[in-house]
Structure formats: structure tokens, C-alpha cells
């Protein structure tokens, strides 16, 4: 088999072997339901509490402010819908940005159909939210501001502390979708005035199908999934113990290795960006040059189209993406790239490469060389390119 260079870590990551090892006993040995009274269930409960403690510790939060969910999308849906419901008496206005993940945007559209008003604040050409516009959008009826910590496509990190301060100043709840940031960037919910925060296990070498929503004590959000008394009666469903344990280990691992790992990723990322911009003409980098996720590079290659590029890269063993994975199947160009001002046909030729701790300098050099060849071939084929 050909060597695979996996550069789509923003879509999902390889579950770390030690994460899998930590999960294994909870499938076949300590498989008890955590809500039971007998010892077998006690082991599950203990393991779950440990994971909760780890995660709370990383965020500077309390254990009982971490609620496990099935992933980032559920967390986002929960945060938005159930807050909207709980605070409806106070107002019906929500502020978010134009470049949120669909889990936030489509939920906002759903809320709009149900009597809420949503302001989608613009971003600048680097994908940073316009703080002035954000503050101006605030109304007496504004109940929630939801802005992602870092963008999944172009990697831009938002000024979360400033947004938190604005929300705080106006007495408005602040939710952040930190699905891409948790485990990659240091986050402290108090410093950043975050009231709710979404994260997902599979983005940091944890398992798929597990996430959490941090809810600051005192926030009167409702349940989203009703039923049993799990998660302090706020999120029903038999606890996914292996998933929770795996998430805990992955979070711990990500926090412990963060500094060293991201320093290495940043160096490789910058090498990738520098070489591509220098060696491939008619190319631009999308997203902020410095305030960007350590492992994210996003390019637009003029005159060519993304899918063709991805297939050709795959034939060379390189996994990348164009737009975000969850919108593939959709033909529209990325709403994020349009929001930063790219015209349709340029947005179409974009390539996202997201590194992992396993990426090497040789990988990156091979990828750049391959890209050069592919871009050349596709441009030759393109009716838009005249040289």
C-alpha cells in the first residue's frame, strides 16, 4: 500500500492508540450502566467522573459544568436552541457570525423560522469578526452571542476575550463553538467570559460520537434531549462510558502535549505556506496569517477546481479537503470563503490542509511538490487559464 499523508485533521483525527487502550476495558469488562447502584456501575461512574474532572481542569471550569453529548453538532444545537427557549421571555435576538459552522448556522436558521431574530455579523478579509459591528448589533432583546473560537476552514482565531467582554458588559450570554480550538489552543472560560462552550472528541485524537457542552453554573439553559436523569438531569441517554473515557484521555493528552506539539505544527505549517505561496503562482492564503490554528493551511489556486485537485492528491496518497467535509455533497462554494470576499470561482479552487503531530517535514515537501504538479496539470486543462 502507498504511504498515506493524512492532512485532513480538521475533519477528523486518528484516534490515538492510548485512547483506544483506555477505552477497551469499558466495553467488555466495566460495562455497567453508570446510573446503577452496584459496583460494576460504580467503576463506570468513577471513570466518567475522572474524564469530567480532566476536562473541567483544562478549561478552568467546575466538574459539574461539563455535560457530555454525542459531539460538536449536538452541543451547538443544544446551546443555541435550549438557551433560546429558556431566555425567550427576556428576548428573541441572537448574534452570531457569517463564518460559523453549519451546526450553528443551520440551527440559527431553524430558530429564525421559530420566531427568533438572528444577526450574522461580517468578518474581514482575514476572517476576523468585526467587533464594532458585533457591538452595534446588540439590542435590548439580545439574549445570546455565539461566535466560534477558531474557524474550521480557514483556521482564523477570533478575539474571543474581547467578544466575551462585550457580551459580559451587556449582560448577554456568550457561547463559543470551540470544536476546532479545544486541545489546540489554551482556553480558560473565566478569563474569556465564556458561558457555554462546545467541543467534540474526534477532533483531538479522541473517539467519534462524543462531545461536551460546558455550561457555566447559573445559566438556565433547558434540556435538549429529554428522558432519563443522566448528566444532572440535563442530557438524557445511557452514558457512553468508553467514549467519555476516551475523550478524557485525549483531552489530557492534548493539553499536556499542546505546547510542544503546536510549536512543531506551526513550524511545518509555515514552511508549507511559505513554499506554496512562493512556488505556485496565482495562489492566495485564506485566513489570518498569524492568528490561525497551528495546524491549518488553506489556499486558493486560481483557475482550478477543488474536487479535481482532491482526487489527484488522493491518487498520490495525500488526504486534504476543499471546504469542510460535512458540506461535501453540497455544490455551493464555502460560505466561509465567500464571507471573506472571495469570488465564486476562486472559492472553488480552495484546498485545506490540516496537519497533525504525525506530520513530518518530508511529508510537507512531498505535498508541495505534488501540489505544484497537480495545479499545473489542472490549469492546463482549465478554460479559465491562459498563459
Amino acid at each position, binding site marked *: 500500500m502507498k504511504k498515506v499523508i493524512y492532512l485532513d485533521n480538521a475533519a477528523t483525527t486518528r484516534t490515538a492508540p492510548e485512547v483506544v487502550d483506555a477505552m477497551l476495558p469499558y466495553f467488555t469488562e466495566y460495562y455497567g450502566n453508570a446510573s446503577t447502584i452496584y459496583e460494576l456501575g460504580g467503576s463506570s461512574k468513577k471513570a466518567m467522573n475522572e474524564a469530567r474532572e480532566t476536562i473541567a481542569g483544562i478549561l478552568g471550569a467546575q466538574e459539574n459544568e461539563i455535560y457530555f453529548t454525542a459531539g460538536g453538532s449536538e452541543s451547538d444545537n443544544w446551546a443555541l436552541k435550549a438557551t433560546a427557549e429558556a431566555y425567550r421571555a427576556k428576548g428573541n435576538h441572537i448574534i452570531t457570525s457569517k463564518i460559523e459552522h453549519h451546526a450553528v448556522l443551520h440551527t440559527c436558521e431553524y430558530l429564525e423560522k421559530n420566531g427568533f431574530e438572528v444577526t450574522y455579523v461580517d468578518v474581514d478579509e482575514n476572517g476576523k469578526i468585526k467587533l464594532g459591528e458585533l457591538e452595534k448589533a446588540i439590542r435590548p432583546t439580545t439574549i445570546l452571542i455565539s461566535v466560534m473560537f477558531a474557524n474550521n476552514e480557514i483556521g482564523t482565531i477570533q478575539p474571543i476575550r474581547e467578544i466575551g467582554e462585550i457580551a459580559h458588559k451587556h449582560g448577554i450570554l456568550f457561547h463559543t463553538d470551540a470544536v476546532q480550538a479545544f486541545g489546540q489552543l489554551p482556553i480558560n472560560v473565566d478569563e474569556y467570559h465564556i458561558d457555554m462552550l462546545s467541543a467534540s472528541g474526534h477532533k483531538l485524537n479522541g473517539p467519534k460520537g462524543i462531545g461536551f457542552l460546558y455550561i457555566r453554573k447559573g445559566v438556565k439553559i433547558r434540556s435538549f434531549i429529554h428522558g432519563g436523569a443522566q448528566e444532572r438531569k440535563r442530557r438524557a441517554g445511557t452514558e457512553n462510558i468508553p467514549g467519555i473515557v476516551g475523550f478524557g484521555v485525549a483531552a489530557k493528552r492534548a493539553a499536556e502535549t499542546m505546547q510542544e506539539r503546536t510549536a512543531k505544527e506551526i513550524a511545518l505549517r509555515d514552511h508549507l505556506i511559505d513554499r506554496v505561496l512562493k512556488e505556485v503562482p496565482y495562489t492566495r492564503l485564506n485566513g489570518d496569517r498569524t492568528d490561525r490554528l497551528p495546524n491549518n493551511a488553506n489556499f486558493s489556486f486560481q483557475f482550478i*477546481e477543488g474536487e*479535481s485537485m482532491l*482526487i489527484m492528491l488522493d491518487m498520490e496518497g495525500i488526504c486534504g479537503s476543499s471546504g469542510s467535509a460535512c458540506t461535501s455533497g453540497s*455544490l455551493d462554494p464555502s460560505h466561509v470563503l465567500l464571507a471573506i470576499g472571495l469570488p465564486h*470561482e476562486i472559492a*472553488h479552487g480552495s484546498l485545506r490542509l490540516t496537519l497533525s503531530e504525525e506530520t513530518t517535514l518530508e511529508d510537507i515537501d512531498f505535498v508541495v511538490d505534488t501540489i505544484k504538479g497537480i495545479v499545473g496539470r489542472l490549469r492546463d486543462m*482549465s*478554460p479559465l487559464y491562459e498563459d
Partner: protein
Amino acid sequence: MYSEKVMDHFQHPRNMGEIEDASGVGTVGNAKCGDIMRMYLDIDDDGIIQDVKFKTFGCGAAVATSSMATELVKGKNIQEALQVTNKAVMEALDGLPPVKVHCSLLAEEAIHAALWDYAEKHGIKIEGLKKPKSDIHEGEEDEEEEY
């Protein structure tokens, strides 16, 4: 996702390129996805398509259907070329995923556009050929309902 035939035509596109002083050139864009295809035809005095080339800015399916379409029209006469529908191209490629059906329309329309250009340049009328739209956006499979 794609059949082996599609992948083969994508990796080794036939007749990719341009024809200088072509008898007819047609460019069409796909309103659905923004992709673009250009077809060059070299038609001899007997109305036989002697040569054909394409250029495509589009997805894998677009490239493969362009390539297959050129193979299907090459050596045919104009009336035969008009029979090369997107269905025929898809069949020759062993099918396309539903979301990619619209891409095959690009190829059909690009040939029509090139034939139209040829007809205009030569002041003739081709039986059964309608003026091509520059943007195509009809005839796709129904997409899934939105929920």
C-alpha cells in the same frame, strides 16, 4: 464514489486541449456549481467531426464526462453528435453518483454550443439544434428534499 471508468477518464483525459482555428467552439457554465467547460470541434466539409478537444474547470465528473463525450463524438457526423446526450455519456462511464448528474449536462451542452457556433460561422442551420443557454441548470435529478 466514482466508477473505474470515470476514474480512468479523469486520470487520463482523452482529447484534452485546444484546436486552433476550430470550426466551432462552445463554452458553457453550470449555474448549479459554477463550473465551466469549453469544447472545440474540427468539422470537415462532409460534416464529419474530424477532431475534438476540451478544456474543463470542474469536478472529477466534469472532467471525465468531457473526456468521454469527446470520444463519443469523434468521427461522427453532426446528426450523430447531437445524439450524444448526457445519458449516453453517463452510461458509457458506468454511471455517476446522483449528485453528479448535472455535471454530465455540461458535456452535452458544450457540444451543442460548439455545433451552434459552427452553424453560425458557416451560415447553416442544424436540424434539431436549439440555441444553447450559456448557463445550464435544468434536467438534474431531483435532489433530496431539504429538511
